[in-house]
């Protein structure tokens, strides 16, 4: 198609500029702009969606578009430039489509909120920064937008800042992310120094070129540890942003934000940014096998641990949050496993990447689940405890149907749902990789647990009898909220169909052979998990199982609190001591003491005694005469 061969150079500018302007106008003028402001945000989201659809399916090779020169110091040049390739276009589609749907859903959900213009402003800011991450052609630009995403996430989690828990959660999310970002920055700087200041992904002197025949190749061959550390530092950024163990603690708390935010940011897009970044630098991970293994294991541990925690949560959003954690762990595990599989290959073009594929399917069904949960919460007058719901099937049939599709997809119901295919792809890689079998069984166990807790949630919230007044009087959500649900349900069903994946550039991996073991294991896990939960929770009024360890999230928050208290307090004690000793003592008190002592000594001279003054004056004169006449050589000699 020749029409699509034309360059999309103008599109990235549009994609970044529109949400930016919208965010600027709304955030600065949200007190002046009353309700009308939200349509500006909606308009920008819709335009971005159209633009990203137009960009889909291009057969152009990867193309770098220079947007803005940013910094020039001597030879070092850093520019805001966009790298348009298949991965970028696919991710753009996910971000803008879900972004648009969440905007529409929020019209209904946030209808009565006083700060909704502010909310939409922050949403636009998020769209701006997320688009920036997706477009980023180099690591520094990605880092800038990475931080911006953190800011918008902070703003959105803390949207109801009057609530102490929301304010606390936003702070926690931001600070936890900062820890990861610190590592990310170190990783970027390491690559920056190794590759002489160029941290572009593509391009002549970019990281990929350097790895296939430049400075980085030499380093990777001679100093494997350097590459491993650099990659692990980059991974730390992903650990923070994608809430991997041990920095996962912020994501469940982030559910304090409005539910559409949870759907967009803390389920579908922002938390996936870490995975997206890892896939972007997959070629680096492949060059560092030790790092790849670590990444895979961290992902596996997160997946299993989060799934265990999810089985004992009662808040409908928290169950979904832990499930998100678990699925993100899956994706990260896939990144690691895939890198192990392709170690040293340095492919020029990334073929279908299982992590990207799972990211893609997961984004749709998880966003839908969250929006569905949002609809339920909205209808039950902001009731979030699933034990106070029940029997919603009759009251909210459309929500029920879409939620069922999402649940099925998350559990991986074979053949009809997209989640099944992407999960299969990951498990397939784990099965094939040498040394991946423990991770394979972790994956299967996680799949079983996923089926278990999703069935539990579904059975408790939608089936049975209403267990509270608000559940009893629940009515179907308004059309503006149902529409996004329906669209997402459709996408969930069709997104793994080969034709659609190709069209949406989902990077679906093309497996030559389906492994029977994988298939059987995952179907068995589904059956055991779902069946067990169905038998256990059907027609129950309260949780028959109580495992405090899981309910209390393995006591991570408590452990961290103690760690922070012990470490930080002792560190603060030491630093305070040093401060008192060195800064106060050496740099402030000592000079003051010396000056005071010198002053006191000099004071003696200023005794007010006229005769002492004249004596000193005379002494000075004598000294001068002595030096000039008897010490210095006579003039002229």
């Amino acid at each position, binding site marked *: 198609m020749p029409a699509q061969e034309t360059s999309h150079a103008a599109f990235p500018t549009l994609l970044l500029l529109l949400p930016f302007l919208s965010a600027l106008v709304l955030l600065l003028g949200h007190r002046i702009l009353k309700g009308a402001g939200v349509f500006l945000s909606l308009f920008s989201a819709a335009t971005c969606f159209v633009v990203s659809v137009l960009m889909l399916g291009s057969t152009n090779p990867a193309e770098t578009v220079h947007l803005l020169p940013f910094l020039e110091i001597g030879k070092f040049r850093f520019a805001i430039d966009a790298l348009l390739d298949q991965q970028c276009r696919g991710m753009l589609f996910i971000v803008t489509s879900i972004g648009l749907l969440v905007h529409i859903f929020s019209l209904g959900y946030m209808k009565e909120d006083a700060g909704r213009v502010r909310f939409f402003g922050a949403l636009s800011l998020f769209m701006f920064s997320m688009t920036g991450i997706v477009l980023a052609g180099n690591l520094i630009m990605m880092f800038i937008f990475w931080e911006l995403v953190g800011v918008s996430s902070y703003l959105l989690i803390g949207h109801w800042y009057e609530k102490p828990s929301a304010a606390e959660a936003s702070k926690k999310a931001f600070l936890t992310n900062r820890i990861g970002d610190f590592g990310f920055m170190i990783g970027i700087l390491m690559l920056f120094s190794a590759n002489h200041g160029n941290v572009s992904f593509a391009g002549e002197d970019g990281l990929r070129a350097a790895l296939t025949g430049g400075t980085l190749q030499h380093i990777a061959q001679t100093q494997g540890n350097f590459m491993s550390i650099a990659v692990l530092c980059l991974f730390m950024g992903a650990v923070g942003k994608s809430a991997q163990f041990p920095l996962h603690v912020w994501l469940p708390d982030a559910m304090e934000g409005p539910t559409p935010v949870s759907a967009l940011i803390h389920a579908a897009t922002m938390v996936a940014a870490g995975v997206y970044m890892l896939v972007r630098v997959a070629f680096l991970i492949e060059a560092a096998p030790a790092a790849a293994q670590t990444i895979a294991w961290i992902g596996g541990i997160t997946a299993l641990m989060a799934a265990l925690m999810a089985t004992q949560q009662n808040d409908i959003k928290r169950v979904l949050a832990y499930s998100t954690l678990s699925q993100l762990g899956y994706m990260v595990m896939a990144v690691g496993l895939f890198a192990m599989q392709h170690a040293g290959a340095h492919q020029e073009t990334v073929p279908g990447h299982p992590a990207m594929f799972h990211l893609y399917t997961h984004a749709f069904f998880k966003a839908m689940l969250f929006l569905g949960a949002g609809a339920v919460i909205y209808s039950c007058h902001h009731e979030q405890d699933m034990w106070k719901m029940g029997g919603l099937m009759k009251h909210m049939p459309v929500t029920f149907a879409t939620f069922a599709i999402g649940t099925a997809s998350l559990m991986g119901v074979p053949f009809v749902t997209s989640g099944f295919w992407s999960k299969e792809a990951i498990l397939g890689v784990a099965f094939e990789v040498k040394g991946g079998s423990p991770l394979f069984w972790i994956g299967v166990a996680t799949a079983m647990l996923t089926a278990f807790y999703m069935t539990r949630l579904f059975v408790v919230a939608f089936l049975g009898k209403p267990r509270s007044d608000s559940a009893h009087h629940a009515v179907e959500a308004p059309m503006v909220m149902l529409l996004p649900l329906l669209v997402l349900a459709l996408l969930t069903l069709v997104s793994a169909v080969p034709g659609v994946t190709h069209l949406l550039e989902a990077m679906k991996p093309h497996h030559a052979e389906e492994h029977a073991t994988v298939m059987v294991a995952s179907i068995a896990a589904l059956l055991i998990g779902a069946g067990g939960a169905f038998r256990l929770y059907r027609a129950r009024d309260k949780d028959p199982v109580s495992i405090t360890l899981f309910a209390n999230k393995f006591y991570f928050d408590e452990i961290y609190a103690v760690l922070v208290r012990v470490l930080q307090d002792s560190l603060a004690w030491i630093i305070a001591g040093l401060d008192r000793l060195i800064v106060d003592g050496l740099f402030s008190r000592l000079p003051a003491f010396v000056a005071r002592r010198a002053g006191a000594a000099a004071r003696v001279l200023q005794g007010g005694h006229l*005769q002492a003054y004249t*004596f000193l004056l*005379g*002494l000075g*004169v*004598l000294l001068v*005469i*002595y030096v000039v*006449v*008897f010490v210095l050589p006579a003039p002229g000699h």
Partner: protein
Amino acid sequence: MPSLLFYLFALITLGFGLMVVLARNPVTSALSLAMSFVGLAALFLSLDAYFIGIIQILVYAGAVMVLFLFIIMLLDIKSEEGKSFNLKAIVGGVVLAAVLAVQIAAVASSYGPGRTNLAEARLDLPAAAEYTKLPTIANDLRAGTLPDAKLVGQSLFQRYGFHLQVIGLLLLVGTVGVVVLSKREKEVN
């Protein structure tokens, strides 16, 4: 003979100078100072500086010493008899003065041109008359006298005219300052 006079007047100058420092009664000090200045004026005369010598007697021994005596009488300052010595100050002063004297003596004795005597530095008045432009000075020189008042005046008014004006201003300021300082402030009393 001239050298005898020099030693005599040098002795007068230094002896009365010592009296100024040692005397316990301020009036004795003041009168000794006057005598010391007279000796000094005589030394000036021996150096052929008649005008400066006369000025020294008129201004110092006359006006300034009268002023000192007047103030001593006005304030009715008693002699310091019976008062303890400030030993530290005395030792300091004596040591300082001694060291200074030694230094000056060392410098002077090693100063080569200082060994010329008065006979060697002879004045040649008729020759000087040839160089002088002012007739009155030239006439005096030819007559064999040294018109040093005229010569100082010539130097003052020809070379240092501006400086003379400044000195005049200084005296005016000094006069005004003395009046201001001497005025009793009514608020204080």
